Each structure stands twice: as structure tokens, then as C-alpha cells.
């Protein structure tokens, strides 16, 4: 480990001197941490994940929303949805299960009631779109296209909690291709596709989305899980199965970002259990060009801002711009020799 990080340091110092240096003294290196993906420029690579940040306004009195890179709003469908019966959530070790059922106000009310506020922010507004059929996605996008101030769509083809819902798309490369192609054709704004981790090989759906014209990928959504009350022998959540999120899923999500980065050319937004700048940096190094903070927003609303500050500080210390960090994982040339040290 020590040897690997020493090598990173050496190589990045050389780069930084070429890239942003202009012969500036050591203390004055100012890293560039803005990023452009799907044709949209974000002032920093940290966004809040869909379903964990409402429509932004709910956090306005707790944190400075203008310091966020972007806000992904709660999944929107063409028509309002009531959601699942309670209980909908359950805390597990270092994680939580949820089966909300995509309760939302519908595309029209989103435009009327929620978008005007989001439009005033420096943070980019990404609208998460959900449907039961390809026609649903297209219809939702056609309504949202009227919206002023939307920067991109995020297609939710991976929600595990709605029957015959999005995950069917997220599990099948052919269906992924179909819904992405149709959405892309309908969309006035760039399309980010949010992938499901509940597959054997995530690169198959990733490639399918890319082939269908996706501008970027975000991964991952929640992992299907469950919890049982042994005393009563009943499920802890009324939907029986639910999506697992939080720090518990981070290593698996990170691996999927790493694999996907090697399989596609379009930018990746890394999601999964991020609660610190160090977590976010791991995703960036694995190949994500940006990250989303999700579950941590529930228990520590300032997480995304701490992550922004931490990334900036790391880049300053390492004399690196964000672009130099993305996908910069140093894999030892001889893994066998490396492991023999342990």
C-alpha cells in the first residue's frame, strides 16, 4: 500500500507542475475541481442523489445549496404516484433499507411548484425520470421538456421497489437500449442513465446505455435486500424486499464503477455509501468524473459540502486538478509480488 501511494504522489506532482503551475510557489496551487459531463458544466463534482434530497428546498435553511455541484431531485413520473404502504424504511448495520415506491408529485406539479426554486441556484438541476413503460418515460420527458432550468435528465431504470417497474429495464441490456434510445430522442436536455447494481455484469447494461446514446451514466442505485422480524416472523418492510443503501454498499458500488469505467467511454457519476471526501475520492480514482451523496443526507445534511471541501483540499495537497484524478488508480504491475508482502 505504502509503495503504491508513494508512486501516485510522485507522478501527480510532475503533472501538476506542467498543468496548473505557471511556476507558482508551492503554497499557491489552486486546483480546478469543476467538471463538464453530458455537456453540462458543474462547479464541483458533488451532487445530491435522487430520493435523498427532496426538491432541494427542504435543505435550504440547513446548508448553502449554491455550493453544491448539482441536485438530483426525487424521481418524477408523468402522473403523481402515491407510493408504498408503511413501513417503508428499516435501519440495518451501516445501512438502511427503503421501499418508498417512488411517491412523487408528478411532472406537471414539479414544473409548477418545485422547479422555480431550483432554477435560482448555482447548483445544476438534474431531474430523475421514472416510468413503467418506455411510453411513460417518453411522456414524462415530454412534459418536463417545457421546464426552464433543467440541466439534464437522469433516467431511473433501476428502482427495485415498484412492481414490474424500472428494474426490468435495468436488468436487461436490450430493454435498457430501447428505453434509453426512446428517451434520448424525446429529450431536450442531456440524458444520464442510472444503472441497477442488481445484475451479474453491470458492464452489459452500461454498454447498452452507451450504445443507445446515453450522455453519461450514474451508478449505482440501491441493492435489493430484506430484513425480517424474527419475533413476529414478518418482513420489516411492507414491500417485503427493499433497496439497501448507505456505507454498507460502498465497496460493491466502487467495484462496479471501476469495472464500468474500463468498459465505456461516456462519463460516470459514482454513487454508493459516500459519507466523506475520502469515500468520494475513491470513486473518482476508480473512474467516476463526479459523485452523488445519498443516504448521508438523511443523517448529516452537510455531507455534500464537506465532501466538496475535502476534495478541494486533497487536490491542493496533491497538486492535482480534478481531471487528473479521475480514473487515476495505480494498479501494481505485478499483483502477485504485491500480495506476497502480506
Amino acid at each position, binding site marked *: 500500500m505504502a509503495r503504491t501511494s508513494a508512486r501516485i504522489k510522485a507522478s501527480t506532482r510532475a503533472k501538476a507542475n506542467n498543468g496548473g503551475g505557471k511556476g507558482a510557489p508551492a503554497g499557491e496551487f489552486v486546483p480546478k475541481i469543476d467538471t463538464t459531463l453530458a455537456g453540462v458544466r458543474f462547479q464541483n463534482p458533488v451532487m445530491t442523489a435522487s430520493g435523498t434530497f427532496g426538491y432541494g428546498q427542504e435543505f435550504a435553511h440547513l446548508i448553502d445549496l449554491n455550493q453544491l455541484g448539482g441536485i438530483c431531485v426525487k424521481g418524477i413520473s408523468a402522473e403523481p404516484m*402515491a407510493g408504498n404502504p408503511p413501513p417503508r*424504511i428499516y435501519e440495518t448495520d451501516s445501512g*438502511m433499507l427503503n421501499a*418508498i415506491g417512488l*411517491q412523487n408529485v408528478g411532472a406537471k406539479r414539479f414544473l409548477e411548484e418545485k422547479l422555480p426554486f431550483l432554477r435560482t441556484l448555482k447548483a445544476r438541476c438534474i431531474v430523475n425520470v421514472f416510468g413503467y413503460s418506455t411510453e411513460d418515460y417518453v411522456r414524462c420527458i415530454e412534459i418536463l421538456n417545457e421546464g426552464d432550468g433543467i440541466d439534464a435528465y437522469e433516467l431511473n431504470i433501476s428502482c427495485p421497489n415498484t412492481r414490474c417497474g424500472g428494474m426490468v429495464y435495468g436488468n436487461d441490456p436490450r430493454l435498457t437500449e430501447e428505453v434509453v434510445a426512446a428517451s434520448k430522442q424525446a429529450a431536450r436536455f442531456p440524458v444520464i442513465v442510472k444503472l441497477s447494481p442488481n445484475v451479474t455484469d453491470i458492464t452489459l447494461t452500461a454498454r447498452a446505455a452507451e450504445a443507445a446514446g446515453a450522455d453519461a451514466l450514474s451508478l449505482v442505485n440501491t441493492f435489493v435486500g430484506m430484513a425480517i422480524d424474527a419475533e413476529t416472523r414478518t418482513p420489516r418492510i411492507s414491500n417485503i424486499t427493499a433497496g439497501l443503501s448507505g456505507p454498507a454498499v460502498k465497496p460493491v458500488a466502487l467495484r462496479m464503477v471501476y469495472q464500468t469505467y474500463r468498459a465505456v467511454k461516456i462519463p460516470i457519476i459514482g454513487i454508493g455509501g459516500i459519507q466523506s471526501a475520502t469515500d468520494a475520492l475513491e470513486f473518482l480514482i476508480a473512474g467516476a468524473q463526479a459523485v452523488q451523496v445519498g443516504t448521508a443526507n*438523511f*443523517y448529516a445534511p452537510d455531507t455534500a459540502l464537506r465532501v466538496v471541501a475535502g476534495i478541494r483540499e486533497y487536490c491542493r495537497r496533491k497538486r492535482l486538478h480534478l481531471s487528473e484524478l479521475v480514473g487515476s488508480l495505480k494498479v501494481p504491475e505485478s499483483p502477485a509480488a504485491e500480495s506476497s508482502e502480506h
Partner: protein
Amino acid sequence: MYDEMVPVTENRPLTGGHFLLSVHAPRAARATRPGQFAMIQLLGRPDVLLRRPMSIYDLTAGNGRGRRKNSAPEEMQFLYKVVGRGTDLMAKLRAGDKVGLLAPLGHGFFEEEYLSQAREGDEVVHVAGGIGIAALLLPARQLARTGIRQRLFFGGRTKADLVGVEDFKPLVKQTVLATEDGSRGHRGFVTGPLEAYLARRSGKKILLMVCGPWAMLEATVSLARQYGQRCLVSMENRMGCGLGVCLGCCIRVVGEGHGAYQRVCTEGPVFWAEKVVWERERIPKT
């Protein structure tokens, strides 16, 4: 609403696995209205992610001085029972420890609306089941200042569950207690003596304010309907955020709203009883 780290000033054990936690939180305490709640974050256990929703039981001047007239409160108190992982950790807190506090949250007992309702009526009857008592003290204090006649009906499994009765005594005209094992007060559920009382007072206009487990709420609401009395309920649910964004705490309500569900943390925790759909929803088969 404030999101801050606050020091514990006391965590006093009471009977039956109950505790009274006091924290020094002047800003949040001053902003609190009766019936509101807080989300408490326990530190040092990264595997326990979520904050825990807690009724704000009382506001005091701190340093054991209790509550003085016209002085701004400095401390916030939480009455809780150890029932799971979060409350188990909470019970280990000591004076000087820090907790994360997000408070005050929720709508409380719709002050303006309920005060006018209460004034028009003859009296207010508080009905508490177990730890549900924690949501009712601040409303009772506020109503006592207006001079409205109040009663408390309080039920628990056993006498050790009947915590906080002494705090209500100066505020209410009568306290009616019930325990399932008969160790204190009436034997059985609190809805027994409550029904007898409502039957006796059928000509009067009574506002019921209720907090407790679901079955007890359901029974009390049904009595209120039967005797034509209005009823406010303080609802409880698992919560992810307390901020209205996770939608984890939704309960089914009558008519439109946030779909057919409303958030306990935002539209509640206090609801008019007729707003809530009381029939327990069955778990769907796949």
C-alpha cells in the same frame, strides 16, 4: 430548525427502563412549540446511521432549576424507553457527552387551531399509552396557562411504565391511571375508564389529545367518533431524516395530499384523527 451538536446535562434513569435525557440547547428550546419533536444523533457508532425521532417532553431553565416564569428555556428534555438499538445507546449517555440535535421539527399540536377548539369546549382530555406520554406534557403546560380544564388518562403495561405522572399533576384536574396487570390504577387498557368517562360526559364538548401505540390510538379514536368528540393524535413512525425528504415516515391519510400518504415528520406528527386511515394496511403478497 437548528442542526447542532449539544451537550448532555443529565440522563436520569426512571422506572421500567425509562430515562429522562436533558440537553443544553437554548436556541432549539426557545423555538419549540408544544407537540414538536427532535431527531437525535448518537455519535461514535458509525454502524448506527440514522437519527432517532423523539418527542420534546419538556423545556427547562437548566441546572435543576426547573421552569421559571418568563425565563427563556435553556434545556430540552426527552422522556424515552429503551426499546431497541438506538435507545439502548442513548441510555449509555452521560453528562458532558455530545449528541447531534435537529430540532424543533414538525407541526406540533396546531397551536392556533387547537387553542380555539379547546376554548370553545368544556375541557381537554389527554390520553397517553406508555411512552406516548412524552408528547403531551408541553401541550398540557401551554393549556394550563390558558386556564382550560384538563384531565389525563394514562395507561401502561405495569406501574413502572407510568412515568411522568407527577409532572402532569399540577396541570390537570384529574389523573386516571390504568395498567394491564392492575399494579396501579384500573386493571386493563386505559380506554376502559376513558369510555366510561366519555359516556358520563356525553353532553359536554371535549377535545381529546392522544399519543401512544397504534392499537391504543385506533381504540381511542373510535371512542371519540362514537361519542362525537374531536380528537388530535400525535403519530409515531420510523423516520429516516425528519426533514421531509426520505418519505420513509408516511402514513395513509384520507383524500389528497402528498399522494394518499402524508409525512409524519412534516405534515405531522399531530393530525386530526379523522385525517388518518386507521385500518391497518395489509402486507401485500407477491
